[in-house]
């Protein structure tokens, strides 16, 4: 432990769109982060196309939601989610 202001590497939830089927489990486990679009696919609440489009496929996970994110990864019926870091 140090007092350095260096932030921890951000945890990211990566969506593999080629696998995602829009089942919606992740949006139930992580309602703070994910909404559903009109076709049922997860839509990041942060990050807009105008801001950073990349944040819509790699969504930053606040520390408090890491457990829920891990659940979403484990329970996704399409195995479309991964935890990565930046």
């Amino acid at each position, binding site marked *: 432990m140090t007092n350095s202001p260096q932030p921890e590497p951000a945890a990211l939830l990566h969506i593999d*769109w080629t696998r995602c089927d829009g089942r919606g489990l992740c949006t139930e486990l992580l309602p703070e982060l994910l909404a559903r679009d009109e076709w049922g696919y997860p839509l990041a609440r942060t990050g807009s196309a105008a801001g*950073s489009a990349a944040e819509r496929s790699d969504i930053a996970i606040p520390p408090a939601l890491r457990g829920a994110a891990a659940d979403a990864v484990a329970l996704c019926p399409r195995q479309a989610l991964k935890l990565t870091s930046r």
Partner: protein
Amino acid sequence: MTVAELTGTARLFRAGSPTFAAHHAVYGSLPSVTAPDAPDALIDELRRSGLEGRGGAGFPVWRKLASVLANSSVLADSSGLANSSVLANSSALANSAGRGSSQRQPVVIGNGADGEPLSHKDETLLRQAPHLVLDGLLLCQAVVRASDVSLYVGAASAAAVRLAIAERPDALHVRVLIAPEDFVSGEATAVANAFEHGVSVPRDHIVHLSQSGVKKRPTLVQNVETLAQLALIARFGAEWFRSVGTASEPGTRLVTVSGDVGTPQLLEVAGGTSLRRIVDACAPLDEMPRAVLVGGYHGGWVPGDRLDSALSREALAPFGAAPGAGVIFVLGSGRCGLESAGAIADYLASQSARQCGPCINGLPAMASVLGSLAARSRDPRLPGELARLADLVTGRGSCSHPDGTARFVLSSLRAFETDVRAHLTGRCEVHGA
């Protein structure tokens, strides 16, 4: 298709014939990169040349090469070692091998897929100047020390490429893979997929191909025009390359001009040439076209009264366009921009690889709204709905097809803004009532 040149910019087609003899007579021998410091020297020369990729994305060529080289010499699991015999012979490698116990052999792929239906530059280059492309491919192989080298080409150029390979012993190991004619088949991860699994559709990736591509090996995918330009820089240097073009758009680039022109053709132009000059070289049917689509179907429209704009990133950015793969499509003054844009959006929707939900659903939705706008449906919500859908699909796919389609649709709303208003009242600026 004929190949024309603007004064002083003929570089890539100088041989005048696809034979190796003609190529060698004009350009001379392939420079050697076997000396231990030669790969780094060539990467540095490429950095100073400012050469950027000519396949569409415009990524600096030296950075890709440096990245693949760096990733090829990091510690990796032994499954990445397909064949180490070539590496074992390289003295230069003995040094870097000290960093890790094994090597991941890089893969080099020349991409000549020309996925854009309006682009013919890669096919023409492969048919008329295949040896420059092969030179560039062999140089990349030497720089990153790859053993696996391939060309990914459309069916129309395959015969010429195979003939060229058979002409030179140094290229006999180059494999040729035929690319399908789909719009997304030339996307870099689709190319890697084609080599690994035989299907040319984009795939999910969390790291760049230069780190993990074909069979998890560092993979260099370069457009074939990029390779030909690289072969010239290796011979004549960065200064020579930059002696044509502008500081930010150095060298020449190939552009395919089509649409309402008397002479649709491929041109080799200096970087930063004005659109006006390029269009005028092709006998346009109008003094002032309605608009010019720059950068292909993922590009943007430049209105006809703005053709003084240069073919450069900076000049085209306000239009949501970029030089891209050099596609220039001229829309004559008698054509409705919204009707043309609607037809292109239909095509783009049809070219979804149908893997990612937002693309499968969002692209047809955008095409349908744009179609209603083109058909002069009097619904004032249409432009807002189009902008909303464009925002919704952006950044939500495994490749840039949704993003590029959204960019094109938004550019259509901007370039034909006054006609959008006319259409919403049932009129059309071009076709009248």
